[in-house]
């Protein structure tokens, strides 16, 4: 469904991605593993159109999307949940969710989608009129994911959803990601919590210094000696 072919992304003179290629098939959970600064978030931002690659292609179905605007890419079904949540703190839970469904196709089914989100995250319904800035860390992460789902994405990209969460909430968030996937949404995940994310994933890619150096199934990567030493600290 998504094909990334040899993309190169620069920040000014600094090259962040040196020809990254990866595929995501319909229905999969795919993880990108890598240390900080390897280019994981940059890859997601190139796919969502926030950054434009200097070379290479990104193909979604039949469309070449690497020069499209972010809003166009969202309307084609790709949504990115940014690292650090980036909610609207002075808007309520419901208002934040509504912000996720601003384009016509999503707006039409807003009510049903919100019911679906509330079913996934009952906590959000309990707090629907509360300001986002007053939610706990875990609730904010749920809201960020819920807001992303409001546009009815076919591909959901999550950037470090477990950041700053207690162990019990980390587990809860990964369970929900799995549930969202089982209900038909394809997932591309970036995580420092390598063990949890690879356990959950069908496949994974390892990104080092802007290049993919290794790929395989989640289980293969968990057993890989290099991964165990460099990322799991075993």
């Amino acid at each position: 469904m998504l094909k990334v072919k040899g993309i190169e992304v620069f920040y000014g003179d600094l090259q962040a991605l040196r020809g990254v290629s990866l595929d995501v098939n319909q229905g999969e959970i795919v993880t990108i593993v890598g240390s900080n600064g390897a280019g994981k978030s940059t890859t997601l931002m190139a796919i969502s159109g926030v950054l434009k690659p200097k070379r290479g292609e990104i193909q979604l179905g039949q469309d070449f999307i690497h020069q499209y605007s972010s809003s166009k890419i969202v309307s084609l079904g790709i949504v990115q949940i940014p690292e650090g949540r980036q909610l609207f703190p002075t808007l309520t839970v419901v208002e934040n969710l509504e912000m996720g469904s601003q384009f016509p196709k999503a707006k039409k089914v807003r009510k049903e989608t919100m019911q679906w989100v509330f079913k996934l995250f009952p906590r959000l319904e309990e707090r629907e009129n509360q300001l986002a800035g007053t939610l706990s860390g875990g609730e904010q992460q749920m809201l960020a994911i819920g807001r992303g789902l409001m546009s009815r994405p076919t591909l959901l990209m999550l950037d470090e959803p477990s950041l700053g969460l207690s162990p019990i909430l980390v587990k809860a968030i990964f369970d929900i990601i799995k549930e969202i996937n089982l209900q038909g949404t394809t997932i591309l995940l970036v995580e420092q919590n390598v063990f949890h994310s690879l356990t959950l994933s069908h496949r994974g890619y390892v990104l080092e210094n802007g290049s993919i150096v290794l790929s395989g199934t989640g289980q293969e990567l968990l057993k890989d000696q290099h991964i165990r030493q460099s990322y799991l600290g075993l």
Partner: protein
Amino acid sequence: MSLLELKAVCKNFGGLKAVNQVSLGLEEGEILGIIGPNGAGKTTLFNAITGFYKPDDGEVWFQKERLIDLKPHQICKKGMVRTFQIVKPFLELTVLENVVIAALNRTKSVQEATERALKTIEFVGLKDKVDTLGTGLTLPHRKRLELARALATEPKLLLLDEVMAGLTPTEVDELIRLLKKVNEKGITILLIEHVMRGVMALSQRVIVLNYGEKIAEGVPQEVVKNRQVIEAYLGEEFGNAES
């Protein structure tokens, strides 16, 4: 008396008791971990200790002196410094400039502050980044810079708020080694952390907060077996590879 002693500290936000009657003693040279669910009051407790908030009730004692109505910079002068969960270096300044500002806490001479800053930067392993701007650092390096800035104020007590969040387990291990070296220099550490790998490796004692109250205290190996702690915080017993 302990280096830091809290007596029934309370901090309310309207009707919410964010920190409720928390008492603890921290001995010189110790590393004490604070764990607990998101929203349990951990960072609020840090803010109440370091002068960012005024406690509504209770007492904070540091080096046998009660801290009342002091501003964060005055508390820093007394030898207590904290880092922030969201690291806040001066992004448009270099690593060196960032640390020099902190070193000026102990000296008026920019030259002397620069010498101390360079030593601190080398100590945290950022020597080859001395002239890099804050914006040009990766997250692990920003976290080290945050640590260097705190250390350059020459604290007796260092409060760390989630310094390990966002790091891979291998990066966490490097930071654990560095923090052990900090502690060996005689600096006492109070540590808020969700990364249990770090909590277990560093803490001699752990306290657990839940809904603003202390629900458990003890050596880490025992605390993680506490049923209340597992239910409120860990979800399952500690000891899996992911932690």
